[in-house]
């Protein structure tokens, strides 16, 4: 889960890593601007590389200039998200830009400390154009870092004299932060040497493991809570998250109600492959309760963009009878008018089928647009029929 720069820097500050003095400003906290020392850098808080080029980083030498530029930035749209906050920091005079990161090496399954004397540019670029400028130090998962190791890293950045010790402390601190907060990435780019020979983390990128956040209750104190890996949640995504349902809004018109995350991914592919447009990704997880199944159906059917529902249940961990019961109860209580084209196979299929047949016979009118196919109907045929149903609805 990628943090905003200001969030990452709050963690840095808590761990004693050197960040420039600064304040966070949103529409309701312009008064924070009184605390800064000019000249300042104004940095829009957005998940974007090359913020400088996109005008998302600006400079101001006095209050009036800062105010104008901040109010200009706030509310801007960028890559689909609105800029709600800026970080205003005292401007550091830069003598040198370096790169320092601790990441998980997915090939080696080990931790990797990476440094470069070419900081301030995309590290992927450095890796391609001058790989010899990139120094790498591997550590085994879970292992502590010895001070000498950190000193080796700092020395590799050719920091010396008092800067060597400052650099050593910084490497120790960043590695311990990486380990201590279950990070996937902890990156400083650029790490700068100021004109008065101090080190500063000018930018900070932290990527947390959402599945380990329970171990770090202090993140909440810092205002950091679970969300998308990158970016904010939509309203429906928030509702789903609260209910423990993995759910992502897409921009199509076919609601996807699958069982299992992997097939959820396959389903949106197949819908697209056959010319339809999925409205969402969803995962029922291992063995969903009936209540959870009904919440899931509600999320789809209440979405005005959704014209038809594609549903699939391969009863493995979860049972077809439970699934059928949930579907029937939802339909009877909510009387949805959108077509629902579904397939049910696997464990307890027969019992599930009986439940649905019985409901149909009692409430035939509610089930007019609802189909539940069986094992012998290939899943892709079900998808094609859903796409046709959605197109008919639109007309």
């Amino acid at each position, binding site marked *: 889960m990628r943090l905003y720069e200001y969030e990452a820097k709050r963690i840095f500050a808590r761990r004693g890593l050197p960040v420039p003095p600064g304040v966070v400003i949103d529409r309701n906290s312009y008064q924070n601007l009184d605390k800064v020392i000019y000249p300042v850098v104004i940095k829009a808080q957005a998940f974007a590389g090359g913020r400088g080029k996109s005008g998302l980083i600006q400079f101001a030498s006095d209050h009036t200039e800062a105010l104008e530029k901040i109010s200009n930035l706030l509310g801007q749209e960028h890559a689909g998200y609105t800029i709600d906050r800026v970080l205003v920091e005292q401007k550091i005079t830069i003598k040198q830009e370096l790169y320092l990161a601790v990441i998980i090496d997915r090939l080696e399954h080990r931790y990797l400390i990476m440094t470069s004397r070419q900081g301030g540019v995309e590290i992927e670029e450095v890796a391609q154009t001058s790989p010899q400028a990139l120094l790498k130090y591997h550590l085994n*998962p879970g292992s502590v870092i010895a001070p000498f190791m950190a000193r080796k890293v700092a020395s590799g950045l050719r920091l010396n004299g008092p800067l060597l010790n400052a650099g050593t402390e910084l490497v120790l601190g960043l590695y311990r932060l990486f380990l201590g907060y*279950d990070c996937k990435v902890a990156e400083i780019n650029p790490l700068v040497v100021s004109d008065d020979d101090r080190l500063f983390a000018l930018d900070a990128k932290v990527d947390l493991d*959402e599945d380990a956040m329970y171990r770090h209750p202090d993140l909440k104190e810092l205002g950091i809570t679970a969300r*998308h*890996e990158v970016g904010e949640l939509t309203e429906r995504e928030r509702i789903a998250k609260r209910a423990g349902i993995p759910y992502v809004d897409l921009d199509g018109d076919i609601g996807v109600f699958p069982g*299992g*995350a992997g097939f959820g991914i396959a389903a949106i592919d197949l819908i697209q492959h056959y010319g339809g447009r999925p409205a969402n990704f969803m995962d029922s997880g291992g063995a969903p309760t009936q209540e959870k199944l009904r919440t899931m159906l509600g999320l789809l059917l209440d979405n005005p963009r959704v014209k038809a529902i594609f549903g699939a249940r*391969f009863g*493995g961990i979860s049972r077809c009878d439970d699934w059928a019961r949930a579907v029937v109860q939802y339909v009877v209580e909510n009387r949805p008018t959108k077509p629902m084209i579904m397939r049910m196979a696997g464990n307890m299929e027969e019992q599930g089928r009986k439940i649905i047949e019985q409901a149909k016979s009692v409430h035939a009118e509610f089930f007019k647009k609802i189909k539940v196919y069986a094992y012998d109907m290939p*899943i892709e045929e079900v998808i094609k029929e859903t796409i046709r149903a959605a197109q008919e609805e639109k007309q």
Partner: protein
Amino acid sequence: MAIIIDNNIETIVQGVTGTNAALHTKFMLEYGTKIVGGVTPGKVGQEVEGIPVYDTVMDCLAEHPNATVSSVWVPPRFAKDAILEAIDAGIKTIIVITERIPVHDMLYARCVAQEKGIMIIGGNTPGVISPGKALIGMLPKIAFQPGRIGTVARSGAVTYYVANSLNLAGLGESTSVGLGGDPILGTNFEDVLRLFEHDDETDAVVMAGEIGGVYEELAAPYIKEMSKPVIAYITGKAAPQGKRLGHAGAIIEGKMGTAASKIIALEKYGALIAQTLSEIPGLVKKTLGRDVS
């Protein structure tokens, strides 16, 4: 002999008293899997489906010294410890059903396992089945039939649908392996491809990957070395960037882990690419040049 599990292996269940674990212990026993013991700390003396429960893996193995495989069903915050305990006690293959294990925990457990030559499958694996012989995990038996096609997938449901489409076309599986949906996996595609390559009960392999990570790309070069055909099905072409799709591992991070990059890598080294589930059995039959069952 099938890969990983066969009808003669003895196995234990860690976290056996949990609801899901107990239910699937029943299903596994019904399938014929030889479960000899279960472990839940503090519950020694209890029984689950007639299987005795122990406090520690060590105690369990003291009574059942031939058990070599364990499945782990404990909550994610206890998964690392359960794996380390199994390794310490002498278990050789650890099938980790638990999902959403913290990344650093799994990296550590993986590192210990690798040093000691222990196989971990998962986390977040649906399990492994050698149809007609043994099943460890929560795969629905109805989705599988004995045959000579090896399958390996990241996702549980995709494992079922792949087998399902093979079965509908008259094909069956030698072994189906779920690698798991977590981002750090104990065993990856290449490991399983190597096992199938050397398995004389397997004629061809279907691998089903998805967005996220680089395990598919890493496996690609080995496909060229293989004597057996590999059919690859990769999902997530329609996936948005930067959002986890259910599985902790199913996410496109920056330029890494897209369906396109995986398909390009696999195709380059000779895998046959299935665009849809329904294309899979046709490609298998075509490449084998005959009707196999």
